[in-house]
């Protein structure tokens, strides 16, 4: 028997696709986030992040508009607590609020738990979650797990997926 690395279901040896979650079971072509060449490029050092102590969660509900030029997708998400960014994960059945599977997320190096967008007392912040290929905010590569303030009109690159972000600056 072999175990599906996505959902843990047992399958007879030689099975090609998991009967439970549909994951591909051949080791040689496992689906892990591709490390893209641009990850190695050094870029300008980013400005300092907001200090964690300054962040108070905000209860104010904000509306964020996301535009993904490559796949011509445009949609509005409500920012209640957080908007997770990544790829749908069959293992835990977690589908992030901003799911980039459809935007060729896998090929374009988006991690399953790539980044998160949160509402705080200092405005809307973006935090990279230690993703394989990183998050780039307006050409600054963000260090992992540090909150950065977002402005309406910002360009954010998750792996190689470019997203434009708009909201009312209140």
């Amino acid at each position: 028997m072999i175990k599906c690395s996505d959902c843990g279901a047992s399958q007879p040896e030689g099975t090609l696709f998991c009967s439970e979650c549909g994951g591909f079971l051949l080791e040689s072509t496992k689906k892990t986030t591709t490390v893209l060449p641009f990850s190695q490029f050094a870029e300008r050092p980013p400005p300092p992040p907001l200090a964690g102590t300054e962040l108070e969660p905000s209860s104010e509900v904000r509306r964020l508009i996301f535009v993904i030029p490559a796949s011509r997708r445009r949609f509005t998400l409500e920012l209640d607590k957080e908007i997770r960014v990544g790829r749908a994960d069959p293992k835990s059945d977690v589908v992030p609020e901003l799911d980039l599977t459809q935007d060729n997320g896998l090929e374009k190096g988006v991690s399953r738990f790539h980044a998160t967008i949160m509402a705080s007392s200092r405005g809307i912040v973006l935090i990279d979650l230690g993703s394989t290929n990183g998050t780039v905010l307006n050409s600054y590569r963000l260090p992992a797990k540090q909150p950065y303030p977002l402005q309406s009109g910002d360009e954010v690159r998750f792996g190689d997926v470019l997203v434009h972000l708009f909201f009312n600056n209140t």
Partner: protein
Amino acid sequence: MTGEFNYYKILGVDPQATTDTIRQAFAELRAGFPQEMRDAAVNPAYRRLLNAYEVLNNPERRATYDSLLVETALPALSIDSLSSRDQIGLTESVQRIYLLVDVRAPEQEVKAVLPLNLCLVIDRSTSMQGTRLSCVKSAVELIADRLTAEDIISVVTFSDRAEVVLPAAHLDSKAHLAGQVRRIEASGGTEIYQGLSAAVKEMRKLPLKEYTNHLILLTDGHTYGDVDECLQLAQQVSRQGIGFSAFGIGSEWNDEFLDRLVASSGGQSGFIESPTQIVDFLQQRITGLGAIYAQNLRLLPDFPKSIRVQYGFKIVPFAQPLDLDNSTIQLGDLEGRSPLSFLLEVDIEQQPVETRINIPLLFTADIPSQGMQERTFRHHHRIYVLADAAKVEPPPSLVKAVRMLNMYRMNEKVWEEVEAGRLDVAATRMRRLTTRLLEAGETQLAHEAQSEMGRLAQAGTMSLEGRKRLKYGTRALVNQTITLDHDD
């Protein structure tokens, strides 16, 4: 085997000839040899005649000879197979392999098809009123253009009872067909058995052996109380050479029933979402039927004990699950211009020692153009069990087919969970399917799956349209995958 050494040709008799005929033929030929020439030791011609007679006059020897003859004769079917692995390691556990089998007419043999004996069985229950029935009518009229002068057509309608609108006959006048069909009016319930049995009666008016016999059912509803009778009839007449196809219009019909109805003849079932598609579906089906090379193709599951076939699915010429529950696996008809491909999921029991496993693929088929009835064709697929089995990537075409098929099966499981009342499990499965569909670039089906997932979570059920769109949509994905590459 050349004519000179074929015993039947030496005696000038048909391979199906009776013993009496053989004796008579021998006596006549022997009489042609003067007494002094009847010495097998010196006269090779007489020796051949005597040999032929001795073998064919002895039932046991004749049977052995016949089986050899089949194997050495130029094959009337070309069979090919491809597996996900041809070598497996020594193991303590069950090993799974996938086998893609491709059956086709040999080159240059695509000719002499039988004329069609076609019967259209049309639901005229009240729900067919309006666009549905008018689209069916125009589809029937258009079909007339696809028929040749030798073809036979009949049209039967049913509601609570059946009515023969056009008796089985050559199509003399298209205007007459159109006139008869236009008079069909919608009213009443849906009793499919009435329609099927009247249709079979019409079709039997002709000698079935001289035709490609096919019944096409068009319905938009559930049948009441006669499901078992319908299935029995389908099973019974499929043995006599009548094939079934069934198309459901709209979303209210019972897809499981139609799948089972066509399974015994290896026919096609399909989902016609919008009435305007009826014409396309029917024309496609009839084009396929008009070019049939071999009929009644069946796989005899004569497998060794160590092998279990878990799942079977026909991929080409149309996608259709195979019914493995019967003593033979019905594959349907082989079209002359297209191969017939199917996929088997095979489990091999643990193999502690090195060996070679033969997976016998034994087919029977009728090939009218060659006068063959229930002729047997053999093919073996070999798997080697080796201590150091080579790790080889499975063929990409096969992986693709299995991947698409897996999505179809994932969707089937969702429905099983819904029927069993496990809605949360169903929703989880549907979410996983959504992700896989997205990965495969099937955005439209993914959206469909996503909205059904929402419906499962909120309303605790799926929509009938959504269920059918997903079922037949994922099924069609399998058909879009490629088949075996031939050398030609």
